[in-house]
């Protein structure tokens, strides 16, 4: 059953997209900054974890240690980006903010090039056992199942965080109305800082999962960060469930396009690569019909 297999792989990829998209949505929701540097953060997170693991003796426990250290570094990076780069831009127009994150993206990718140079880096194979599991008549590699579990776990964790914890609720309040949140005693600058830390952490988790699934590369991994943007837009920039559902929709549809549309186009025109470009066609159509995504807030514009 090729369709079942395609859909299951699509769900796995979609869940990973969902985790990375969560980072975008978080930062956007709390501070109205769309972080175009997410791709670079993805790459840096994946590489940092790999590098730390290579310094350690090896084994699953040390891998978990490496992940924890990576997440701490990611959080610190998030704090410092917010403090040094984004804080001076409060009140500046949209283009400044966009350009700042683009500049950060280029800067961080440059640092990545300098440290890891070119070539593909695969994660060690002794962390997740190599093997297959049979679900609904299709065999799926353990690493996909593992990635799906991690991704779903993260989504659940962040969902609960926003629903129930004090700082999660404060973040939502800030996103809703900065002025009102401030007048109720919420420190918005602290919220921005936390949002950036969480954004960087989700990016690092995404990077580690991508490292397991397809390996890391200085050239391709940052572009993966841009591939998550259709997901974010599909769900709406300020909706957390939207990020997750958008991720699953994009993951499944792009895999379906790869499985069914790609051979068709190849037969007719000799074209390929439909899978990679399909999400962009999808958002062009969706944005024409629903300019704020499926679940995004429709802002009523006033003069």
């Amino acid at each position, binding site marked *: 059953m090729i369709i079942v297999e395609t859909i299951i792989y699509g769900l796995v990829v979609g869940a990973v997209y969902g985790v990375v998209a969560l980072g975008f949505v978080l930062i956007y929701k709390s501070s109205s900054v769309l972080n175009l540097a997410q791709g670079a953060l993805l790459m840096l997170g994946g590489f940092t974890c790999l590098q730390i693991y290579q310094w350690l003796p090896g084994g699953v426990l040390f891998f978990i240690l490496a992940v924890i250290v990576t997440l701490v570094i990611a959080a610190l990076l998030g704090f410092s980006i917010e403090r040094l780069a984004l804080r001076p831009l409060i009140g500046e127009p949209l283009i400044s903010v966009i350009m700042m994150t683009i500049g950060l*993206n280029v*800067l961080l990718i*440059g640092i990545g090039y*300098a440290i890891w*140079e070119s070539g593909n880096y695969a994660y060690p194979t002794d962390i997740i056992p190599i093997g297959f599991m049979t679900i609904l008549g299709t065999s799926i590699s353990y690493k996909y199942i593992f990635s799906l579990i991690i991704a779903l776990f993260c989504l659940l964790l962040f969902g609960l965080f926003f629903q129930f914890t004090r700082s999660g609720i404060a973040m939502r309040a800030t996103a809703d109305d900065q002025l009102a949140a401030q007048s109720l005693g919420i420190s918005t600058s602290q919220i921005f800082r936390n949002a950036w830390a969480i954004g960087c952490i989700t990016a690092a988790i995404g990077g580690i999962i991508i490292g397991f699934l397809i390996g890391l590369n200085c050239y391709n991994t940052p572009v993966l960060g841009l591939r998550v943007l259709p997901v974010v837009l599909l769900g709406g920039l300020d909706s957390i469930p939207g990020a997750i559902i958008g991720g699953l929709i994009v993951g499944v549809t792009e895999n379906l396009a790869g499985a069914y549309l790609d051979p068709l186009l190849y037969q007719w*025109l*000799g074209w390929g690569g439909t899978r990679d*470009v399909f999400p962009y066609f999808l958002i062009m159509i969706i944005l024409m019909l629903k300019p704020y995504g499926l679940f995004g807030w429709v802002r009523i514009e006033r003069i």
Partner: protein
Amino acid sequence: MHNPCGIFNETYEQDLAIFRTKWQWFFLVGGIALAASAPLFLNSYIVGILILIFTTTIVLHGLNILTGYCGQISLAQAAFAAVGAYTSALLCQYVPQFAWFPEWFKGGFNFWLTVPIAGLTAGLIGVLFGIPALRLRGFYLVMATLAAHFIILWFITQWIGTQARRLPAPHLAGIILNSEESYYYVVLVAVIILTYFAKNLVRTRLGRAWIAIRDNDLAAEVMGISLFRYKLSAFFIGCFFAGVGGALWAHYTRSITPEYYLIHYGLWYLGYIIVGGMGATVGPFFGAGFLIILTELLAYVISALSGVFHGIENYLSAAREVLFGLVVVLFMILEPRGIAHRWQIFKAYYRLFPYAH
């Protein structure tokens, strides 16, 4: 813009003049003369860099109109430059077969014909991808242009292929313009004409409508400015410039692959106009000049240091990225209005020199 002490505008013509004083005319004529004589005293490598700066400036004029004047942020400028370059490349290779074509056209398209057609094609495709801009705003529009970039590049790589395409050198009156020095004059004339065009375009009714849309598009619409017409005209003209610039650059390198137009370059173009200063016609010159010269200096410094530190030349591409990122980040923090704003301050200071008031 204020005039120097003692010069008053007494007629409408004087009020509208771009160049008002004798000194401004002197600097204009002197600058053009200096630029025109550059190949006489610079070596061909530096002339090549000047060609890069001028073709980039043409592309940036388009982005400046689209983003700086009309407020429609676009990440797809590199894709529109690619459309221009490929249109020109494909048309130059195409030899018409039909008997009813006029005699002068039997040899096929040449450079002089394909460059404007490249601009028009890029402009029309820009209008197509600008249609979502009518409903989208802010980040959603940025993402739509990002999608446009990937879709256009996908069409190019799949339809035309990833192998390098060769382009002919332009001919003029029997002379082949294939050296840096001779092609430089083509680019120089193009950049002067297009800069004049860009400067005057933003002073017309069209330009004022764009500025109104940039400042507040709802208010502009209420005032009776048709958003449909003016946003799409901004996309058309912005992408027209991109197509012309892309085609001119392609005829200089005379071999193009889709790798010259990755998303990376679209982001860099936006960085160039930010550093140069948006919403000013001199901005693209400053941005392209400053950043391209800076990256060339970096390459020079690194090649000079490679004798001392072995292996440092492997870090050139990384260092270039870091430098660009750093420059953009520092400009955003320290001078978000770009070099053009500093230039304004400088001019205002020297207008009153040596008296401060």
